């Protein structure tokens, strides 16, 4: 391994540990040894982007691309830097277009391309790009949010609302919120087997949550059935049963078991969640949903998702000012919550605050891409590709 490669390895490691200043120094050390190393420029661009130093990131990424036009991580950094810098949408469109060509299966490139096109007022092309992203990945929540925002701009909230709801359902953070309300952690990789579960309430409930979390809905339902056979008035088990119904689009059943759970124990937050969620899926129950989620937001005020759900219910009954307050509260609690940012953007659009809305969407995109950790994936793929071609 050459000195430059060793130094680059070190820089990469430091970057992964989020030790930005040291990683930047290490990148410069690589460039002192070999200034034609595109990976060092690309990594430097990403590090500078992490600090919101857009001009510097643009410079570094552009150098990387100049050195190798196939350097995909550099395209990502360059596009993101243009987007976040703002006002450079023409260049941004070009970069995302290029990345979508170089890596056609990269969903984020299509989503970002759509956002750059939308910011440039090319709405039709933007919608086509988001649809392409959803073709590649039907669970792409951000593309769905973007489509909902586009619908809002064109036809108003009534048309946009189903899109926001659909995007919300695609967003995995809502399920995390449910399990968080139940006090269940992320759990391990190992799935419980029904025959190994101890025949007590605690073990069965824990197993049911684990199975539900792993999307084994039937396994979880079997476990709940055993629980309820022993104790039919178990509010928590009923709430989980309601959640399982919700996952299977059975809103009426979910509503029924949630109501039963709340009749047994009105302070079961998971049941409140299930009831609110089932109300939102039924026409004409928007007001009830807003009340239920309002109660949930009061019960768990430090959970940003509770405010998001309340805000979304308020959107459904056209109480935009109240929805804005709830969204703002959610953003205060968690600035990285993409769903709250998009919702807030929607409310701002209804108020005619286009610049503020655009800013919220930009921030949502920023956090979403950062959450995905896409740069490092592209970086690894690119490095591996170079090694293979060298061999």
């Amino acid at each position, binding site marked *: 391994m050459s000195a430059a490669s060793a130094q680059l390895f070190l820089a990469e490691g430091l970057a992964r540990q*989020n030790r*930005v*200043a040291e990683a*930047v*120094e290490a*990148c*410069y050390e690589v460039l002192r040894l070999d200034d034609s190393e595109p990976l060092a420029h690309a990594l430097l661009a990403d590090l500078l982007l992490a*600090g*919101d*130093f*857009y*001009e*510097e990131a643009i410079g570094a990424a552009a150098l990387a691309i100049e050195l190798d036009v196939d350097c995909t991580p550099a395209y990502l950094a360059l596009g993101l830097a243009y987007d*976040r*810098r*703002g*006002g*450079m*949408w*023409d260049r941004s469109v070009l970069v995302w277009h290029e990345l979508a060509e170089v890596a056609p299966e990269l969903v984020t490139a299509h989503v970002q391309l759509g956002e750059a096109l939308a*910011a*440039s*007022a*090319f709405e039709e092309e933007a919608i086509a790009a988001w649809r392409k992203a959803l073709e590649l990945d039907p669970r792409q929540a951000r593309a769905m949010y973007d489509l909902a925002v586009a619908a809002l701009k064109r036809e108003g909230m009534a048309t946009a609302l189903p899109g926001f709801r659909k995007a919300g359902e695609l967003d995995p953070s809502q399920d995390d919120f449910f399990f968080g309300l139940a006090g269940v952690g992320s759990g391990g990789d190992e799935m419980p087997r029904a025959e190994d579960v101890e025949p007590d309430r605690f073990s069965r409930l824990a197993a049911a949550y684990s199975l539900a979390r792993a999307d084994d809905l039937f396994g979880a339902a079997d476990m709940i059935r055993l629980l309820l056979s022993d104790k039919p008035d178990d509010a928590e088990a009923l709430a989980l049963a309601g959640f399982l119904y919700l996952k299977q689009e059975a809103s009426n059943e979910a509503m029924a078991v949630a109501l039963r759970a709340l009749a047994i124990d009105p302070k079961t937050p998971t049941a409140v969640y299930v009831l609110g969620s089932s109300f939102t899926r039924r026409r004409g129950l928007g007001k009830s949903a807003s009340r239920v989620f309002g109660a949930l937001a009061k019960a768990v005020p430090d959970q940003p998702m509770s405010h998001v759900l309340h805000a979304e219910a308020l959107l459904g009954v056209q109480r935009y000012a109240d929805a804005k307050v709830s969204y703002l509260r959610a*953003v*205060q*609690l*968690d*600035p990285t919550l993409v769903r709250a940012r998009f919702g807030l953007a929607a409310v701002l659009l209804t108020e*005619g*605050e*286009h*610049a*503020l809305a*655009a*800013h919220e969407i930009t*921030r949502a995109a920023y956090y979403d891409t950062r959450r995905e950790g896409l740069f490092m994936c592209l970086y690894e793929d690119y490095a591996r590709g170079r090694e293979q071609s060298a061999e």
Partner: protein
Amino acid sequence: MPSDREIDGGEGQTDASPMTPEAVNAETSDEELRTSGAAVPADAARRPRRNPLFGTGVSLYPLDDEADEPEDWYSRDVTADLDTLTEAKCSLVRLFVGWRVLEPQVGQYDAEILGRLSELVKSVDERGMQSIVCFFADDRHADLASVPWGARRDPRIDPYLLQREAAVIAQVVSALHGSAGLFAWQLGDEAFLSGFTTAEDLAAWAGQLREAIREHDPARPIGLGADVETFFRSSGIDMRALAESFEFSVAHATSAYRAYASQGPLTSVNSSYLEPFLLRCAPAGKPVLLDETGPLSLEYSAGEEAQALRVALWSAICNGASGVMARRLRDMRTERREPYFLDPFETLVGVLDDEGEAKPAFDELATFIATSAVLDLRAYTPLPERAAVLMPAERYEPLPSLAGLYAPRACLQAFVTAKRAQVPVKVVHEGEELREYRLIAVPSAFRLEDGTWSQLAEFVQAGGTVLYSYGGGELAKESAGLFGVEFVGDGGPRRSFECRVAQQRLLGDLENFDSLLELPAYALVTPSTATVVATDATGNPLLTVNQVGQGRAVFVSVPLERAVAQGDPWAAPHPVLALLRELYGSSARAAGCAAPFECDTPEVEVTLFSGDTDDVIVLINHSPERVLAGMSTNHPVASISDIRGGAEVPVGGKAFGVPLGAGGVSALRLTYE
């Protein structure tokens, strides 16, 4: 004004020298007062039309249509434009010399063009305004700083072209220097000057051309058209020393700097504080013109543009500017294309549309001129700023040091925090004299110069207060005595921030809290002589105070300002912002440099102009929401009234409320019991 108030009027308005040398014709007009709906007082007939000590104007670019050629330099009839400016009571107009049209062939000057320039200056003068004539700007359309015979040589560094530039200046200055309506000369604008790659080249260019002006005009002010802070950011050249050799300097927020320092819409969070911050970064002791303010791109609605301009104009007069210039009069008429992209030279958007119709921003400009006219800056002086944010020298370090990138953001956050705490504040650069201050905030610096620690120690010994937040890395050994703590090490980054108050009231009213905030570092210290005021959740000192001599040194164990600035300023946790505000406010109160009033709304910036028998306060709402600012003063207020006139509203107490719209401004006269 009551005599026992803690205001040192003797040192007020040190840097607010007028940008208008003549006492502008104090003509009488009460038209704007009538149209504003305010009752016109009996003495309105004697009121000035505009503020004689605060120039306000607009840049009048040579071309207003993208289809025009450089040869069309000011070929249109500008009478209507000048009349519009006259109606708005502007006092300054910037005109641009076009080198290409003036010297079409080497050494041959077009007398017609020179005559046209003289006519323009005369027309401006005839309307009671004054001109700033700018050489070698780059507006991207009119080739103002290049010549066809230049053979693609760089006019910034080519010795022959430099000679020609000096000669063209000689032609213009000798033709115009006798004009009464000519106020000042300007060399370059930021678009042109940012093409320099070394400080030496810039100094040589500026020095030679300055001499060329001085040969024919020994007295008139000359300015260099770049902001020291934004220019360093764009070019990497520190031009502070050079700027000080000119008679006035300019401050402006370029779009690139705005994206770097405070992204997001113009009208909220830290964005609206950016221009006052840059004003305070300008060289001290020289008049500063807040330049190129107003609409920047077509990204914002007309209402947002107007709101941003309103806040910028009033921030200028409240933050030591000597005048203010809007970016452009008319929108450039561009080809009909969508979308509009950012104009890299920022000269497309004006305060009138391309038909010459006033936009809301223009109405704001006119309203500002009419209202600020009534603020007599001879009779009312702003409170002296005895608090300063220290811009560390590491700000000028290049990459790979990130300090140069972090420092301005942390300093802006500190400046905003001081404003939110109603502390009159300036920015001081490391190495500058600190004696005039009572409080120095050092926000999140990684490292200070060797001499600075002893300077800070002397400052505290003499009764000053230092508010220092740790920036990361090794804490200088010299700091141990000052802060009364032993540095154990950097605890590294944290994702949460907790505060547990150990000593109440030593640093104001602090509250316990837990919040999510990414902290890049945490200084682990053990107190020796310092008192621990607050700790984190595990008992590590978070805030300490050390009494040294007659002063005190406050140590914050985390880079708080940087953490807020680097995080999402739109979602900074409220308890953290409240802690910062209380730290700055209480430190200023203890140091005796706080304002003699309080405002319960942090987003409202309040500036007090102190008079002999009454005061004027200007309240600027920096938030995009409507607010009711609750004011409380040290002395009972008898009445308040709009400075433009109108009925006096009796108060009879120390508290009153002022309603302000989004980005709203209110200028009130206070009389005391």
